[in-house]
């Protein structure tokens, strides 16, 4: 078997056998002896003062071990939840959030007490008996109202509701607008979304009394991050705190922060001297897990009649929720990518983060990039419509064509071929035929539309050269590669997989790089006890950053193996040739040693003078740049003017994520990503009642997650433009589908409704919204 063929091969996932037979190990599958269960009492009010809490009835209830409130936790938890140093240069307010409210609750769902009981039924029963005396306070749910002077305050100790206000000016915007033939304005919304991983959050904390040691099993994307912060707040050093995140049933960005419940369960374990389990139920999840998007963009574009784009001005209004999410300010990246894959002379962006009495927003698949793509791709179509040019041709006229390209804000796009992916997508969908058919159908009173999305996105966070000045952090990634005496290989990584298939794809990389059989490579992640510190998995970074950390360790191992081979053959190291895992002296391939033999030798006697025993390496990789995937999605829809219902007739995508390790996994990431963007375009929206602050979409009955019947067939294709940023030539693909797809659908719907004079459609484009727009247009 030619071992060098693993990279690029479609290999079935080694993760799957246990998952398809019911032997996964998800958080609710973790059970410890003597384990108690935690139920969280949450504020039903969007904003209220907590006058008093009476726990006596709950304490007296059957099976109750403890009822704990903020005062109890203050003695054990040493600090507030973390907020990363802002990605925004001008952070106005960073209010602290303690994991449980003491005197004032600022969103419906904020923890106010916890009950620890013998089983989860009893814990939930007793939670009903906790009596909290609330004094409801005025709440502000709407971010624009929250900005008004005199608005109710989200929390009474704050001067106002502004979290940040930062300007990003690039270029002479007045000159760009002065040149314009057309100046167009549009407001573009990004509704709040539930990330809705199918597995809700949960954790099991096991604090060992008198020993100050703790193990926390938790459903997270970032185990090392959790250890750092939860351990820090509880006063347990990392060396004595182990965080384990086995199988995780989806993350999508909603599991990348330390959450209040992780602190509370760990502290409760310490207080009660019992292991404590907490499993979020779905209704709770919809209140208490971070949400995505929640933004409004006010955009103004300047263009020439020939289609040349000149200047772009926009303001991002971002609904932070009651407290900053740990990474909420990352979403400001939308400002830096607002120009998309086009050449603009000048772009002026501004971001205002606004507190409201809602659950925090934080990254959700794409985090800032879907918003940027949605706004620029909408704007390009608006320009095209205004000047009467084909939307594809406006794109073609303005594409960035030479790489590396430094964008208006100094970010360097590493490689790209935007026109090629668009041409390919247009060919795949047979664009001319589709336009012709559209015309024919229009004549018959049927409304079909074609929507483009040509996107570029930033991923592989991140080079410390970029993240350190902005956020004070270096988002490097780590690996440890250990070749055992008989040749099998354990690879431990700081990233975390929750559906992405790293155990398979990373093993493919190792097999090729070390020249060892794929089956001999084991990938370990998710347990801080046996993996090096890493920042975890989000932002499509695991391959471009984590994969490169693995490569670096493999190279070190190969270097040492060469020395071992030189010693064995009594040759000089320069004369050793390595070919697909075989080490031999140049010119004598017949007499070779494989890595397993060299590994065995490395643990035995007779090593070269001065060489340490063993064959292993640890590496940390700090990428020189971000990586920049791109592509073109084209969606074809039909809108029924009588009902407003949208059907997706075709969905064609051509994506370029650089070199591909496993095409099956890459396609799977795209399918899921595209589905989430389509779902934002058509169905999903978190709704709160503006008056009462109550959530209206509080169960899965009210919040629409699409089923199989709502999703079209995805026609995928790709181009391969290797990234020059890393040796693997890879970019990232976890978020690309979501980044591209919402606007392909919305542009298609807007195109379909053009005969009604409709120029813009907001999300979600539900039948009632479209039906009303059509009705109004007809009137």
């Amino acid at each position, binding site marked *: 078997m030619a071992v060098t063929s693993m990279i690029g091969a479609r*290999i079935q996932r080694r993760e799957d056998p246990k998952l398809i*037979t*019911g032997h996964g190990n998800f958080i609710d599958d973790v059970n410890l002896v003597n384990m108690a269960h935690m139920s969280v009492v949450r504020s039903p009010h969007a904003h209220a003062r907590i006058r008093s809490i009476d726990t006596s009835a709950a304490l007296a209830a059957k099976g109750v071990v403890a009822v704990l409130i903020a005062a109890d936790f203050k003695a054990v938890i040493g600090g507030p939840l973390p907020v990363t140093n802002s990605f925004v240069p001008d952070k106005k307010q960073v209010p602290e959030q303690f994991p449980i409210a003491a005197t004032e609750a600022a969103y419906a769902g904020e923890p106010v007490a916890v009950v620890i009981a013998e089983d989860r039924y009893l814990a939930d029963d007793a939670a009903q008996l906790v009596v909290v005396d609330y004094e409801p306070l005025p709440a502000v749910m709407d971010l624009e109202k929250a900005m008004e002077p005199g608005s109710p305050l989200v929390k009474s100790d704050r001067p106002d509701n502004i979290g940040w206000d930062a300007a990003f000016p690039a270029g002479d915007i007045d000159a760009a607008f002065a040149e314009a033939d057309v100046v167009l304005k549009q407001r573009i919304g990004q509704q709040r979304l539930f990330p809705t991983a*199918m597995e809700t959050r949960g954790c099991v904390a096991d604090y060992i009394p008198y020993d100050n040691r703790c193990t926390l099993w938790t459903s997270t994307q970032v185990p090392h991050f959790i250890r750092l912060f939860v351990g820090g707040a509880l006063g347990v050093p990392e060396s004595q705190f182990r965080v384990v995140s086995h199988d995780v049933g*989806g993350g999508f960005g909603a599991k990348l922060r330390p959450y209040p419940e992780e602190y509370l369960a760990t502290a409760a374990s310490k207080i009660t001297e019992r292991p404590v389990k907490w499993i979020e139920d779905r209704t709770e999840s919809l209140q208490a897990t971070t949400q995505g998007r929640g933004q409004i963009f006010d955009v103004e574009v300047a263009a020439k009649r020939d289609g040349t784009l000149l200047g772009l001005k926009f303001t991002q209004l971002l609904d932070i929720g009651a407290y900053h999410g740990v990474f909420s300010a990352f979403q400001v990246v939308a400002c830096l990518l607002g120009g998309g894959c086009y050449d603009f002379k000048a772009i002026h962006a501004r971001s205002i983060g606004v507190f409201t009495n809602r659950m925090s927003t934080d990254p959700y698949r794409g985090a800032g990039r879907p918003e940027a793509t949605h706004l620029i791709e909408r704007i390009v179509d608006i320009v095209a419509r205004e000047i009467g040019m084909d939307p594809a041709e406006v794109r073609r006229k303005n594409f960035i064509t030479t790489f590396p390209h430094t964008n208006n804000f100094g970010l360097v796009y590493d490689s790209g071929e935007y026109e090629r992916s668009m041409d390919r997508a247009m060919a795949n969908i047979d664009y001319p035929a589709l336009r012709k058919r559209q015309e024919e159908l229009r004549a018959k009173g049927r409304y079909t539309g074609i929507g483009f999305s040509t996107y570029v996105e930033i991923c592989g966070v991140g080079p410390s050269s970029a993240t350190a000045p902005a956020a004070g952090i270096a988002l490097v990634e780590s690996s440890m590669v250990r070749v055992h005496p008989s040749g099998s290989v354990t690879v431990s990584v700081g990233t975390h997989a929750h559906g992405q298939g790293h155990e398979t794809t990373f093993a493919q990389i190792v097999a090729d790089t070390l020249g060892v059989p794929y089956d001999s490579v084991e990938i370990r992640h998710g347990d801080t006890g046996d993996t090096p510190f890493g920042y975890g998995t989000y932002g499509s970074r695991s391959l471009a950053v984590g994969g490169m950390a693995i490569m670096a360790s493999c190279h070190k191992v190969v270097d040492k193996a060469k020395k071992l081979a030189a010693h064995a053959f009594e040759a000089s190291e320069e004369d050793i040739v390595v070919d697909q895992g075989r080490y031999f002296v140049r010119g004598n391939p017949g007499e070779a040693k494989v890595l397993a033999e060299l590994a065995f030798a490395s643990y035995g006697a007779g090593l070269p003078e001065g060489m340490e025993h063993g064959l292993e390496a640890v590496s940390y990789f700090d990428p020189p740049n971000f990586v920049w995937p791109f592509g073109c999605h084209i969606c074809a829809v039909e809108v029924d003017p009588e009902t407003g219902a949208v059907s997706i007739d075709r969905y064609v995508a051509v994506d370029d994520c650089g070199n591909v390790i496993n095409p099956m996994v890459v396609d799977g990431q795209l399918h899921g990503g595209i589905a989430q963007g389509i779902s934002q375009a058509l169905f999903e929206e978190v709704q709160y009642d503006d008056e009462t602050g109550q959530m209206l979409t509080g169960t*899965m009955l009210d919040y629409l997650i699409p089923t199989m019947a709502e999703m079209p067939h995805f026609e995928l294709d790709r181009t391969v433009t290797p990234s020059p940023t890393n040796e693997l030539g890879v970019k990232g693909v976890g978020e690309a589908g979501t980044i591209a797809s919402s606007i392909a659908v919305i542009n298609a719907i807007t195109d379909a409704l053009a005969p009604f004079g409709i120029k813009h459609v907001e999300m979600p484009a539900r039948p009632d919204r479209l039906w009303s727009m059509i009705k109004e247009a007809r009137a």
Partner: protein
Amino acid sequence: MTQSVSLTINGRPREDHVEPRLLLVHYLREVAGLTGTHIACDTSQCGACTVLIDGEAVKSCSVFTVQAAGKDVTTIEGLAQEGTLHPVQQAFWNEHGLQCGFCTPGFIMAAAYLLKQNPSPTDAEIERGLEGNLCRCTGYENIKKAVRSASQAMNGGTAETSANLVGSAAAPVEG
């Protein structure tokens, strides 16, 4: 106040004393120790908890344990026979019909039931048959493919796969 309940799970009879309010899904997971059946909602929307009761697909979060008395329950753990995967399991593996795998046991049970009722479903019938199950990772594309491919395999054809594929986890075929 507990109540005695006898039932058969994956071919093995058992008897337990349970509270009348104990949901079957909690019984399976916490009393019988079969954690392959998952819970992803509290309103009977997601289908992650799907098991077979007397051969029929049922959301086990919507049934009390005592209602399953005397019945024959099959969970995901009982689907593979003597070390051989059920064709639906094999097809989910072949076709990359799962990512995080949390929804997967429910989908596999629902699909196994669908194919038993209707060995050659059309795409529309697959969609209708599985509309009670939610997946957030796959966009359903490969789940549909897996069900089609399982249908072919069960009808005597070889499992036709979307790409050239091999049965073993390890052998590469492309590139």
